[in-house]
């Protein structure tokens, strides 16, 4: 009973935060000389008013959900992994490489899983590096993961300007298209099964974190490292494992971007997705189930940004400001435990 009441209170708090943010942003819009009511109604009707818009929101949200889940896993182990971005991008890269150079001739039922594995390995490699740096050399993982994001961009750029460049692309920095049979099946025009994978992973993660022994140990480490040490839980090894799994999930998000959305790797693939995912996890207080909804919200905001740009001439980045204000107001409310 008490627990339920507290849950409702949390949700209520989040709503209040959202409302405050919407109001503040409204004022901001008025200052910029546009009618906030117009903008808000456009955002809603033109994004959610038709199948295409909804589909776009779902497509956009897919990587956010995955990265949010990945972030959550690290967070439960007491680590701040802001490297979802780099891990995603690298996963996109490795899965593209696999698709272009190795799997071109493979049928879907082998090719797609192998491509997914490649993406996950890519993400794991990147997060594993950060994990080792954290655990073995005591380097702050927040800083290393952020910096490694920038390195990941450069690696991708190197690849798509270099050996991975599509010879038919007229010198555009992009990889060749992956084989048609390697594209993820669609459940709705433009929407691949990626979203289903994401939701399943987030459900599984929630289940494992809250029900399994491993999840339990992870939560102990995240809650109080001393308690974990006194209980004989191997802290370092578990933290590295958490980092590896979270990297794998981000890497998978990268693979889904390639195989489900873009079909080829560009320098811009996945830009900012990692940060959005991190923020989604943050807004959901690291609850993988709630992260589905916060990711959808962020997905909605970023799609509606494009809509607003087309219809009212405001740049699409203006919704980023709304997002930042929402986050600030949630941070302001603070987390009550």
């Amino acid at each position: 009973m008490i627990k339920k009441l507290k849950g409702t209170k949390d949700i209520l708090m989040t709503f209040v935060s959202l409302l405050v943010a919407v109001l503040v942003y409204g004022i901001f819009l008025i200052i910029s000389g546009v009618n906030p009511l117009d903008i808000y109604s456009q955002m809603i009707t033109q994004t959610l008013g038709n199948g295409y818009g909804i589909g776009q929101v779902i497509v956009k949200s897919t990587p956010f959900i995955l990265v949010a889940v990945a972030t959550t896993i690290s967070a439960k182990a007491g680590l701040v992994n802001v490297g979802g971005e780099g891990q995603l991008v690298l996963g996109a890269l490795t899965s593209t490489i696999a698709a272009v150079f190795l799997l071109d001739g493979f049928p879907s039922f082998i090719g797609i899983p192998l491509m997914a594995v490649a993406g996950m390995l890519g993400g794991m490699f990147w997060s594993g590096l950060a994990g080792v740096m954290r655990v073995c050399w005591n380097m702050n993982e927040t800083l290393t993961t952020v910096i490694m994001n920038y390195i990941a961009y450069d690696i991708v750029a190197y690849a798509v300007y270099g050996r991975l460049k599509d010879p038919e692309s007229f010198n555009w920095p992009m990889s060749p298209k992956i084989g048609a049979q390697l594209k993820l099946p669609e459940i709705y025009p433009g929407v691949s099964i990626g979203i289903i994978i994401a939701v399943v992973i987030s459900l599984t993660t929630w289940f494992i974190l809250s029900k399994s022994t491993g999840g339990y140990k992870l939560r102990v480490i995240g809650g109080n490292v001393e308690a974990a040490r006194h209980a004989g839980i191997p802290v370092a090894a578990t933290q590295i494992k958490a980092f590896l799994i979270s990297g794998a999930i981000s890497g998978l998000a990268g693979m889904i971007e390639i195989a489900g959305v873009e079909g080829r790797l560009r320098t811009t693939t996945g830009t900012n997705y990692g940060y959005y995912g991190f923020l989604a996890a943050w807004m959901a207080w690291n609850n993988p189930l709630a992260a589905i909804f916060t990711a959808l919200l962020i997905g909605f905001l970023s799609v509606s940004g494009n809509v607003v740009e087309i219809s009212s001439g405001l740049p699409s980045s203006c919704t980023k400001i709304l997002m930042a204000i929402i986050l600030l107001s949630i941070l302001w409310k603070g987390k009550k435990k």
Partner: protein
Amino acid sequence: MYGIYGETITERVGVINLGTEGCMIAGALAGYAFTYKSGLPFMGVLMGALCGGLLAFIHSLLVIYRGANQLATGLTIMFMGVGITAFLGIDYVSVSCKGLSPVAIPLLSQIPVLGPVVFNQDILTYISYILCPLLTWFLFKSRSGLILRAAGEDSEVLSVYGYNPKLVKMAGVILGGMISGIGGAQLSMAYTHTWIENMTNGRGVVAVALVVLAGYNPKYAMIGAYVFGGAQALQLLLQAQGVNISTFILQMFPYIFTIFALFIAAKSGKQSAPAELKKIIESSAN
């Protein structure tokens, strides 16, 4: 450069501001836009500092008075800085303006080799030369610097002596943000002479890392900044030499260098971290 100095002050009061990136980009746009509008570079620098300070103010408010997670708040600030500037800056993309042009110092700039490099720079660069000793003096010799550092070490001790550690910390964070803002302004006004979205490109984050490496000391921060700058210059140089390495590999250099720097910092410089900052870094779980 300025970003590092700014963050040095911030971290000295026991706060880590990943939003330094945001402060810099805000400074970059504000500096550029106001110079463009008013034609007065001085105005640009001032507004750059103010905008950097404003973002830092939001950060300090959340972190110090609301107890919000420093890293998450910092990221949000960074995000907000990039978002807002992308939005407001749309009108200034590819508008060029004079900004700050190099001022050659007579005589000194005629020193062979070194002269043109060191003494034919814009005014902000000159200021940055003296900023290091100035900050060193401020932090380590002046009474205000002492109080500022005390806030980063042990705010309880400070409050025993009748100061308000929260206010002191806030002042430190804002000052840091302002200096970072100037850093951004220098980037747009003196270095590139244009405004590009997301032009700081991680420099703020790198600054945060370099501060750690520099042992929170402006002197070493300066060295760090020049080495980082050197890594960038090296990249341009190698390119110009036609060395057959991809630019992107070269672009990674500064970041790899930073990671390496963090590694060294983690190995050796642990004691020098302000005590309250250490607590935050060590318990960086949400």
